[in-house]
């Protein structure tokens, strides 16, 4: 019995000795929160060693100034190195507080980085692997250098990152803005064999504008979509939620607003070695703008306007599809996804040369169903 007791005591003592260090404790005021990251390929002028590849820029809030006074309360800084993680460890040489990436909301890719396949793959691996980065970060492409974004001094917000993230969340209201998280990005790149559509952010002086998108194929940037095309892209990929569609009806500009947008894909037929797909777009909403003096609360009139909207959707849709097929030569509109899931046997036959097949032998038709339910407050 005594042996047991002394063993117990020894165990407890051992515990106490081992527990004397709190290895992971970092006080909250000793942390520097990094809210956004920008990745650029290094400019020659800044290259310190021949191996350097990246410039990483960071944004951190200045915690004291958050409450007081107007104006932004954040600072930016950057590092140059040949790997993500090495850049992060470089920061330890310069700052007394330890960077914390658990709240990093945004990651901006400079154009150059997305044009370089190898660079992009390295970066993505580094980011996915490191435990502190959260894969719900929003990803953007910056035409030009990512560090430009950090020079913006927002008009109304104190911090840059929530400002930008807030714009992204407007994607619930407008289909011109795409919301892309890092995990979505990685999944899409994996599933679409290096193809991706990534929102574009244009930095200004006091604001940023998120409109349009960059298009990647085989991990390389191949072009852009403008904001109108982006909204069509959202329709085609079932990502759109809310938005406004402007049409002209008998010379009058009118706007159709929707809060929901559904896309279904159907296989129409397989003929002559071609696959005919039908993208069915369904939405409903209200008319927001017409012209004083004309009343639109009329069934026939509304049906005609809705026909206009449908035509608009169908035309734009087919135009963009052609662009993807012929200009970008990449299937980023979900056809492969549909075929591999819903038509597996068919997909197996074309899996090997899918790219070529997509360009030549898939014919996509867009059919839209628009219902106008409401017209606002006046007739």
């Amino acid at each position, binding site marked *: 019995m005594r042996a047991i007791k002394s063993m117990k005591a020894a165990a407890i003592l051992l515990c106490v000795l081992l527990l004397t260090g709190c290895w*992971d404790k970092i*006080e909250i005021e000793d942390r520097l*929160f990094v809210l956004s990251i920008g990745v650029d390929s290094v400019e020659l002028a800044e290259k310190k060693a021949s191996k350097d590849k990246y410039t990483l820029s960071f944004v951190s809030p200045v915690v004291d100034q958050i409450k007081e006074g107007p104006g932004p309360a954040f600072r930016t800084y950057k590092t140059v190195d040949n790997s993500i993680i090495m850049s992060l460890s470089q920061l330890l040489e310069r700052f007394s507080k330890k960077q914390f990436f658990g709240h990093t909301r945004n990651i901006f890719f400079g154009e150059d980085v997305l044009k370089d396949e190898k660079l992009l793959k390295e970066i993505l691996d580094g980011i996915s692997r490191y435990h502190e980065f959260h894969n719900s970060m929003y990803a953007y492409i910056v035409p030009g250098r990512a560090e430009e974004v950090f020079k913006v001094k927002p008009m109304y917000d104190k911090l840059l990152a929530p400002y930008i993230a807030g714009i992204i969340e407007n994607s619930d209201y407008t289909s011109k803005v795409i919301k892309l998280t890092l995990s979505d990005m990685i999944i899409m790149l994996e599933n679409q064999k290096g193809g991706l559509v990534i929102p574009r952010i244009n930095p200004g002086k006091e604001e940023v504008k998120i409109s349009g998108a960059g298009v990647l194929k085989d991990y390389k940037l191949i072009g852009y979509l403008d904001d109108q095309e982006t909204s069509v892209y959202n329709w085609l990929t079932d990502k759109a939620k809310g938005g406004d569609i402007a049409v002209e009806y008998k010379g009058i500009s009118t706007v159709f607003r929707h809060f929901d947008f559904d896309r279904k894909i159907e296989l129409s037929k397989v003929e002559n070695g071609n696959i005919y797909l039908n993208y069915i777009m369904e939405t409903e909403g209200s008319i927001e703008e017409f012209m004083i003096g004309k009343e639109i609360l009329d069934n026939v009139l509304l049906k005609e306007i809705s026909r206009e909207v449908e035509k608009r959707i169908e035309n734009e849709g087919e135009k963009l599809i052609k662009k993807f097929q012929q200009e970008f030569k990449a299937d980023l509109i979900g056809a492969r996804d549909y075929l591999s899931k819903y038509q597996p046997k068919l997909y197996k036959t074309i899996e090997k040369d899918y790219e070529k097949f997509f360009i030549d032998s898939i014919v996509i038709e867009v059919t839209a169903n628009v219902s106008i339910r409401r017209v606002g407050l006046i007739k």
Partner: protein
Amino acid sequence: MGFLSNRKSGKDKKEKEMGKLINSKNVDENKRRLKERLKDCDDIVYKEFRVGEQQDLKFLLVYADGMSSSDMLNDAVLNALMVHAREVPPEAKEPGEELYKLVRYGGLPASELADKDNLEDAVLAILIGDAVLFIDTTEKCIVIGAKGWPMRGVSEPNTEALIRGPRDGFTETFRVNTALVRRRIRDSRLKLKQLRVGKRSFTDIGVMYIEDIVSPELLEEVFRRIDTIDIDAIIESGYIEQLIEDDYMSPFPQISVTERPDEVAASLYEGRVAILVDNSPFALIVPTTLNSLFQSPEDYYDRWYVASILRFIRYMASILSMVLPAAYIAVTSFHPGILPAKLVISMAAARQGIPFPVLIEAFIMEVTFELLREAGLRLPVPIGSAIGIVGGIVIGSAAVEAGIVSPIMVIIVAITAISSFSIPNYSLAVGFRMLRFLLMIFAGTMGLYGIMLGVLLILSHLVKLKSFGIPYMSPYVSFVGSDFKDTIVRVPTFLMAKRPVLLARDKIRLKNNRNLINRLEQEEGSDDKK
């Protein structure tokens, strides 16, 4: 006021045999012996008087002043004796014996009389508060029940005040307490076994139970444990509690303590055993489970959803009081990623310039609060409460101003303190307070993982704990459905049909007659009284 049933162990018997000195037939000799034994006890009164026509029959009345009621003695003894002595024929051969019989069997208008024939019993009787009457020419003496010491009135216990519920509470007099309980259980099967514990204090202890509900093994265990007590004095029920509890090292109390007779009565109905101790208004109830420590009698007097909400709040509060500071430490020092960005930034802003790490800060504030709490208890009421409030506010804000602690810490500590006040049982609350510090250390070392380990340790300990054979965590473990009706949620009264399964026999206590209430066109004459 009480006949003794002696349940002494063998050791005591020997002592008695040794020290039993039979009284002498001579009153003066008895008086001398008493005075020798009770030397320097200046509050013992020796009243000699003679009665009889010729005034030749010597009586000696001995009692302790202050413990016995002199009014009663005057009426019962002196008055009566003066009368009766005349009834004895003066020529009787042994007038003492005759007189004794007359006096003993009908001469004294006192309701409690007993005979003793030895010094020990006589002395004990005097010290208990009874009066002893010695009659010349006989060695027998009469013990007259004349207890009458100053008593506190029956009033609401201030540690267990309720909004709704009876306002009587136990006092320090044993007999008053037993009466308060018996008033609520007018069943002949309510038993009260009295014992004397304490070699010098001879404290009265009463074990109360309802015979056909309680489990015989439990009862046996209770008596067995009380028998093992070998101490010189029982000053308060706490002594008994600590000497018979299962695990003295545990921070959790295994015996309930209450000042309320209604709570005792309710526990007896559930099959528990109550122990009342003289000189203490705190009754002990065994066995106890963690769940019962969270119950307050008010839960049963109010309606069920009120009770359920309050119970739920109590459970939440107890968890908060144990875990909140530790969680705060873990989250800020180890895993700030859990909090949203805005909160984290404002926390970091609040902590700028604070020299201490969060763990130390938490300890400082907690210890300060504990000091304040203790100080508030010791000071007289008008100053005490003021100090509590003012002290808390002043020290809290002064500390924040001085930059020693952050405002969030003050809030956390305040919430923790308030939560711990909502736990009905004081010892349990203190147990939680202790464990809070333990968890804080765990949190400060290994963050959330440390807290989990600490919680698991506490859980394992709770699960191992038994109170008189009943697992402490019933009904959460080994569960039986019907026991769950009275845990976090208290179901409506008409559904609480069974007694706690582990404790009681005679399971069914209530018949569900709810449907009889709601039948409007019910004929007259249906008896809904049950």
